């Protein structure tokens, strides 16, 4: 295990990705402490202030410095950005975990049992892929009534197919390996064979898919919120911030641009880590 970490540090994309993610996660975790002002505090007379401007606080204390400016109702962009990281990371991560669990499980059983299970899973995948995702998302969000949980569910729905495909392919090749046959010969039951022998050996590509799908989830959440069908607009998420600044792109560009940069930065980190993982876990790579 320690050898793996050593190689991780040496691999440039993984190093870059890990660094970025560590920074973003730290900000997300420490946001309540780091944040300069209350992200929900509305200051109508401090609306649309450009970055590095000061506003007079209502209570008469020394003016607050808005490093990244304020938005259309006077909220500090930097504070919202920091809190937004919590929402985006949570939503992205939870969606990733849900889709990984569901997709991997389905891939595992369809690859192992074949037959009707495989046929059903294949049909499910085809049905989902044949719908334009956005349409599906809007329909489901309408039906479920919106809210964070609904958005997470939609995001999980968007990405489970990737896991299912990969895990199924891996399962098909692993189940013919010697150690699986040996496990059968020992008398191991199906559950043990699946979860002790097959599944752990499919994890390498799953890790890679997981990082990419988390990036996808973050971007999709931003997109949905931007369109107004995602999270509640008052929630400080990067997507809602993008939506906020939509009408002011030419005048108060910082409202949308800052979250945009934050999204780009985080996704870059996640993708770099994924690329690094792919290099590291590739069995053909020089060890």
């Amino acid at each position, binding site marked *: 295990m320690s050898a793996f970490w050593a190689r991780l540090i040496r691999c440039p994309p993984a190093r870059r990705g890990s660094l970025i993610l560590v920074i973003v996660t730290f900000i997300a975790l420490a946001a309540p402490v780091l944040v300069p002002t209350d992200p929900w505090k509305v200051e109508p007379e401090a609306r649309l202030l450009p970055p590095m401007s000061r506003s007079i606080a209502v209570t008469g204390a020394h003016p607050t410095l808005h490093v990244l400016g304020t938005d259309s109702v006077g909220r500090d962009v930097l504070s919202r950005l920091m809190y937004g990281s919590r929402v985006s990371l949570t939503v992205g991560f939870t969606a990733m975990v849900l889709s990984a669990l569901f997709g991997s499980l389905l891939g595992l059983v369809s690859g192992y049992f074949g037959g009707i299970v495989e046929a059903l899973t294949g049909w499910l995948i085809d049905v989902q892929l044949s719908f334009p995702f956005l349409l599906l998302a809007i329909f489901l969000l309408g039906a479920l009534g919106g809210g964070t949980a609904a958005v997470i569910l939609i995001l999980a729905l968007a990405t489970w197919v990737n896991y299912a495909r990969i895990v199924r392919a891996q399962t098909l090749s692993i189940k013919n390996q010697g150690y699986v046959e040996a496990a059968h*010969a*020992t008398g191991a039951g199906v559950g043990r064979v699946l979860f002790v022998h097959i599944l752990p*050996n499919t994890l390498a590509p799953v890790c890679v898919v997981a990082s990419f799908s988390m990036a996808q989830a973050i971007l999709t959440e931003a997109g949905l919120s931007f369109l107004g069908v995602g999270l509640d607009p008052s929630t400080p998420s990067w997507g809602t911030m993008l939506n906020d600044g939509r009408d002011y792109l030419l005048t108060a560009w910082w409202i949308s641009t800052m979250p945009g940069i934050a999204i780009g930065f985080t996704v870059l980190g996640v993708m770099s880590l994924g690329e690094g993982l792919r290099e590291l876990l590739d069995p053909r790579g020089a060890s």
Partner: protein
Amino acid sequence: MNGADVILTSRQLTVIYGAKPTGWPFGRRPAGVQALRAIDLTVYAGETLALIGESGSGKSTLARALVRCIPASSGTVHFKGSDITSVTGSSLRALRRRLQIIFQDPFGSLNPRLTVGSAIAEPLIVHKLAHGQELRAKVAESLSLVGLDPAVAGRKPHEFSGGQRQRICIARALICRPELVAADEVLSALDLSVRSQTLELFRQLKSQLSLTYLFISHDLGVVRQISDRVAVMYLGRIVELAPTAALYSYPRHPYTRALLDAVPVADPKIERSRRYAALPGEPPSPARPPPGCAFHTRCPRAIDRCRTDVPQLAELAPGHSVACHRPY
């Protein structure tokens, strides 16, 4: 041999490999390949019975069918008197403790993510025979039994050589103290210098643990060293069955003769002076076996009868049976 107990018998054991229909549009089931044809075999307790043959002979299939790793298409298998042909579920699992199999590839037979100790402990865990401290103790005991340091239990398979990995597989197979062990080409993937050590280990363990071996190999030299009786297989049937010494000194089936003849002798003078009489033609495919005796297409002694009648195993000398219309 007659005084010894019978541990395993098969009657008319047949295994057909057929492709499963791949979903409802493909309902047609293609004709299967007969890997084993009506095998009658008796294995005695405490002996080492070797199964030799070339590719397509069915020797691996026979071993797997006898230890119930694959199901029989027809025929029966009896273990110590009870019919095990169609057992399933918990009875099958209980059977696994007593009938074990070790595979050819030491590299593929161990889960790369599990430690060696976990791999060896697997039978104990599956059959709920021990846990915790007792489990660790048994694993350590198993490791020393096969000549490995018990302290290596925490390492992963890739840290070991081929010969060591095979020992780990042996330790895994023996930890539940089975009664019969099938060894499927267990030496073939090992380097030459390691083979004799591993063979010696097999011999040792057999007497230490009172095992019965089903030894599958294509290496006639190794078989000669370790087995008590030898069964020669060709295209899914046993063509000759004899005590080792008798088989090697006076093979009666033409195929056995050709097989023994083809093995190079480690003496250049002898090798240069003899002329190997090649078997004409190619080994037939198991999917399209010749009618009658499967060997007749290549047999130097074939007669008309060989083309139509399948020869049955008949005892020509004490313990020495041959399936041939014109044996030597």
